[in-house]
């Protein structure tokens, strides 16, 4: 059995935005080097309901976007997402970074050999 290559210096950026801003967030993250994202939709309310134009209760669908990024890139990607999602405007959404102890995924054979990792 081959060894697991653990990736360290990794963080997860989680961004909660309106659905219509999801593509802009993903494109902005891609442009600064994000390698992938996972998106799921959630429905509900924030801490205030009456944020709509007419002051009526708004139930809205939000997207929760998770990016696993390297620690080197986390600030760059965080700032790019912040701008793309326009998070400095009230009610647009929020985001946070959480630390990751370790991560693992498929590592191509050529990279494993470069790292002198057991491939059997």
């Amino acid at each position, binding site marked *: 059995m081959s060894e*697991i290559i653990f990736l360290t210096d990794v963080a997860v950026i989680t961004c909660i935005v309106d659905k219509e801003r999801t593509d802009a967030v993903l494109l902005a993250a891609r442009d600064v080097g994000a390698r992938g*994202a*996972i998106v799921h939709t959630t429905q509900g309310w924030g801490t205030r309901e009456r944020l709509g134009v007419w002051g009526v209760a708004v139930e809205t669908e939000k997207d929760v976007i998770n990016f696993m990024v390297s620690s080197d890139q986390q600030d760059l990607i965080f700032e790019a997402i912040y701008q793309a999602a326009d998070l400095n405007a009230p009610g647009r959404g929020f985001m946070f970074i*959480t*630390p*990751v102890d370790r991560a693992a*995924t498929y590592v191509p054979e050529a990279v494993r050999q470069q790292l002198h990792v057991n491939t059997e």
Partner: protein
Amino acid sequence: MSTMPDSAPRRSDFPTCKAIYCILPDDGTDKRVLVELRKKKGIVRAGSLTCRGIGALAEVKTKGGKLPEPDLAKQLCVICSEAQADQIFDFIFWFANIDKPVRGSMWQQPVMGCTPYELPADIPDEETGA
């Protein structure tokens, strides 16, 4: 027997744990992992969520610079004790074939406190019905 404290719970009653997240393909692997975790490791604080997975964002070129079509994926979340975490991480990695291409990725994060959870004892087994 309940795992909850009898008196009003305090934050210190709930020890630090680890959360293991896995992005898995939508082929039933998530359910198989959950069943194995319950049967072999006694893990019940776990669940899976359906997501849109957009992989290799940086490599895909599409017309007009648009995003590639997302794939359906499952995000598995497993909460376990710190002592178990390494073993559970390795178990999921090999069981879900994360070392193979297009099988997803996984990561482990610290959790500052988590309540215990147990399932009712009288739920029939999904396979045997007993």
